[in-house]
């Protein structure tokens, strides 16, 4: 069956307090689908980190979660500043977050590395000044 189920979220960049909401919703929905707890955890952590990134760096964006029978795809798209050096950004501990954001406990430079760690595939497409699209995949087998 090639049909998929889509969950779409607009991640509000103006409202820092609401960051992480999509992750909570998706977690609930994936539980309803009866997915194994470990898979749900992987998806919700990857999505959470992605949401936070979009709010901190890109004034928000969109999150689309597509559930297939054999995999879950997470697509995060924003029209933010883009990532100049993806290899550098992928290094643990590297962060361009402001002091302000760090004082809230974010900006530890673990966002992208965690997204990679908790998913089976991750692709970053980014252009400086245009935006970033991250596609992640978690396989269900």
């Amino acid at each position, binding site marked *: 069956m090639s*049909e998929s*189920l889509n969950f779409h979220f607009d991640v509000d960049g103006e409202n820092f307090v609401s960051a992480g909401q999509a992750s909570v919703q998706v977690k609930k929905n994936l539980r309803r689908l009866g997915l194994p707890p470990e898979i749900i955890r992987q998806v919700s952590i990857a999505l*959470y980190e992605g949401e936070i990134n979009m709010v901190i760096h890109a004034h928000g964006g969109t999150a689309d979660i597509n559930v297939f029978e054999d995999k879950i795809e997470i697509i995060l798209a924003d029209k933010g500043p883009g990532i100049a050096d993806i290899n550098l950004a992928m290094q643990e501990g590297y962060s361009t977050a402001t002091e302000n954001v760090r004082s809230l406990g974010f900006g530890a430079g673990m966002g992208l590395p965690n997204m990679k760690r908790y998913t089976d595939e991750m692709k970053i497409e980014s252009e400086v000044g245009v935006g970033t699209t991250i596609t992640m995949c978690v396989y269900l087998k």
Partner: protein
Amino acid sequence: MNSYRHSVVLDVDKCTGCTSCIRRCPTEAIRINGGHAEINTDRCIDCGECIRVCPNNAKKAMCSKFEHYLHYKWKIALPAPALYGQFDGLDDVDSVLQGLKDIGFDDVYEVAKAAEIVSNYTRIFLKSEGIKKPVISSACPVISRLISLRFPYLKDNILPMLPPMEISAMEARKKAKEEHPELSDEDIGVFFISPCAAKVSYIRNGYGDYKSNVDVVVSLNDIYFMLLGAMKKNRTPTISSEAGMIGIGWATSGGESSAILNDSYLFADGIENCIQVLESIENGNIPHIEFVELNACIGGCVGGVMTIENPFIAKTRLQTVRRYMPVSKNFIGSDVNFVPDSFLTDSLPDYTPISRLSESMSESMRMMAKMQEIRKNLPGIDCGACGAPTCRAFAEDIVRGVANDRKCVVLEHNKKEETDEGASENDS
């Protein structure tokens, strides 16, 4: 699956179907059907929120009456530490314990004493190698059940130790047999004086494979006036408390965690707060800590549905009671570095995926897609008139085949307006 026996019961005659409880229930376990509430026993975690919110007192926690169990030859009371916070001007716990003896108990074993023993062993357990951190307290039965239903990933974080109530029951029974070898097991009745509805379920159902050592649960507010009367007689106590500040501190939120004697802990109370903390632990976005104490009731056990006093007032009273008390009256030697097997349990409720729509993934996906379709038509105002707490839950009920969309008053109203408009256009 349906075998879990709950303590929350509904008096159908009193229930008006007002929908107060369906919105409050943290697991969306209640629906209004046929004019009154119905509790889905698979989802209920015995948190007691519906009992608190019901304006008609139609929900009750089912407990036993002390008078019905007088046939036990040797009756032992296990007072929860929350009991000590219910009395005005109490400055000596001994008078409460004496009161319990005066109303008919043969002996008293304080749960606060067992709590101090548990605190000792928790400190030792936290030092063991290879355990999953943070360790989550096993004392609140609502939280343990919540974890088994919704946070299976955190199951191994639960402290594998019996809660103070169980340890006190075990120790009380042992003590009775030692002191009175003539008593048989059937002669001894262990009565827990409970502030908490969930403990009733815990005792009736056991805990995984574990069967409780408590025989009877008496509600704190049921025994309160009898006890108060006995205490007013001001007899000189012949019994003295064997618990200190730590044990009594367990009655309020934060008491158990402060007893680990380092500052690497988190405590939270109120079921919604607890759920948020568990979500955060599961997502790994909390600071590194050793220990987590979660109490479903606001204020901790003093906030239980079967207490008399407001939890914050009870807490203040406990501060007076605790003043001039030794930190603890139960020590174990500093050379002890393991937890006795009898205090440990690996029995945990199995993960039961209550929220999944169907056993088959593809069927679940079809149902979820259908739910999304249905929700587009629903008003999204979560009015509760259909009997479900939210439009989302209603859509799920429709897809599960337990409701139909004619129950939505807004949809029906709109349909009627359309037909009316159609009719008036035909007239003109």
